[in-house]
């Protein structure tokens, strides 16, 4: 065998080994028996709070739903991102078209591990990379609450993604890089108690960082610019900086933040806009103490300058 042939064989062997390692590393990782046992019995009444904190309805209700229709989680909302178009699925308790056939363990694996009952990875457009920080009891409560919602018939359309993003298995490698249930921010020892409660709500169920933090080209969050604001995943706009850094909300008091989450008005009485409108409606459903906790946490996070580029000056005549 000539040199070229030997090299070719080596390349195939190495490539095969690489592929085998990648296959091994990309395998879905499920909750172990101990974690499943920790879920316990869910309480639907308590789960309603988690439901609003988690913002499930913002993506999973039919687009433009108002009032009670926000509890019909038929799916269908399209998220047009640089990776392709994700379509939110039906997560109503419908046994075939929704998640009515799921066990609590299935639900917990979806929320905490981003793995479907069929053992496939979910795309992180479903923000399990935040939900993975949630307490087991909250998962069980949320499961119990979602069982009480109306079952809606009809599956939503599938995602439309190009290569290589259409290969779900590859997400296993992404998860190894970015899926972590550790807190993002280390609060100072003297931080108020409700800032810690707010940390849980923001970094876990509230998944605020998913839009308010800039991402790398791989789609991983730049945690060193946590909540610094970002170019919106959809459209031309930005998602604001909600730290106290330059361009952020350092001049808002904790009361201003809590009031914004309750009423949708900024301190100077501009109004909430864009996708935050749906989020604010959810936040308004929480107990006041939760909004105050979120405010306390946002006042305590490290300040960053804006995580998005400065706006280009308007072109004359453009």
């Amino acid at each position: 065998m000539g040199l070229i042939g030997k090299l070719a064989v080596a390349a195939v062997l190495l490539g095969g080994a690489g592929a085998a390692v990648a296959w091994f590393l990309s395998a879905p990782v499920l909750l172990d028996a101990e974690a499943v046992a920790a879920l316990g019995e869910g309480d639907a009444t308590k789960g309603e709070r988690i439901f609003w904190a988690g913002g499930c309805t913002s993506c999973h209700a039919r687009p433009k739903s108002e009032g009670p229709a926000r509890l019909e989680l038929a799916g269908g909302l399209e998220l047009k991102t640089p990776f392709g178009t994700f379509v939110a699925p039906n997560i109503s308790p419908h046994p075939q078209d929704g998640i009515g056939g799921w066990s609590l363990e299935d639900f917990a694996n979806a929320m905490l591990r981003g793995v479907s009952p069929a053992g496939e990875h979910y795309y992180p457009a479903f923000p399990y990379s935040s939900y993975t920080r949630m307490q087991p009891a909250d998962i069980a409560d949320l499961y119990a609450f979602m069982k009480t919602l109306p079952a809606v018939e009809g599956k939503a359309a599938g995602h439309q993604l190009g290569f290589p993003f259409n290969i779900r298995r590859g997400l296993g490698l992404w998860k190894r890089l970015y899926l972590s249930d550790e807190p993002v921010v280390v609060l100072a020892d003297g931080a108020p108690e409700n800032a810690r409660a707010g940390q849980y709500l923001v970094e876990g169920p509230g998944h605020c960082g998913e839009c308010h933090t800039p991402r790398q080209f791989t789609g991983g969050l730049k945690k060193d610019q946590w909540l610094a604001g970002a170019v919106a995943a959809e459209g031309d706009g930005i998602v604001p900086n909600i730290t106290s850094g330059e361009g952020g909300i350092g001049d808002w008091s904790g009361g201003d933040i809590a009031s914004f989450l309750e009423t949708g008005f900024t301190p100077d009485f501009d109004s909430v806009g864009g996708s935050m409108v749906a989020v604010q409606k959810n936040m308004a459903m929480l107990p006041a103490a939760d909004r105050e906790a979120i405010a306390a946490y946002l006042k305590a996070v490290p300040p960053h300058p804006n995580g998005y580029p400065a706006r280009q000056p308007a072109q004359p005549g453009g």
Partner: protein
Amino acid sequence: MRKLILAISALALAGTAAFADPIADRKALMKANGKAAGQLGAIAKGEQPFDAAAVLAALTTLSEDAAKMDVAALFPAGTDQGDTTASPKIWEDMAGFQAKVDKFKADTAAAVAAPPQDVEAVKATLGALGQNCGGCHETFRIKKS
């Protein structure tokens, strides 16, 4: 005849002057709305005492500003460009945008016709009117900075 021409020219000029800069004009309207909402907000939050006259004045401002929202004049084609946060969706869905403006007109007119008589009612009115702000900004405004 000459007078007529002069009159038409004057009208045309006045029209041009009023809407020379629709982006600036619509921004001024929105600022005024924010200020009026802020007056209601101060009462709703208990920062200011309830004052029926002040409440009615703020609601009247909102209603008059709403009446001034002539979509064709304030949002002519091409004014999604420039120093504006108006979304291109306004021009893609002019009927939907007009419907939001009409709802704002109707809701503010109704509030003026039956103004709130105590702090709790101010909160409710502001909450209901605020749905108009967010409801329109959800789709038709882009946050740029």
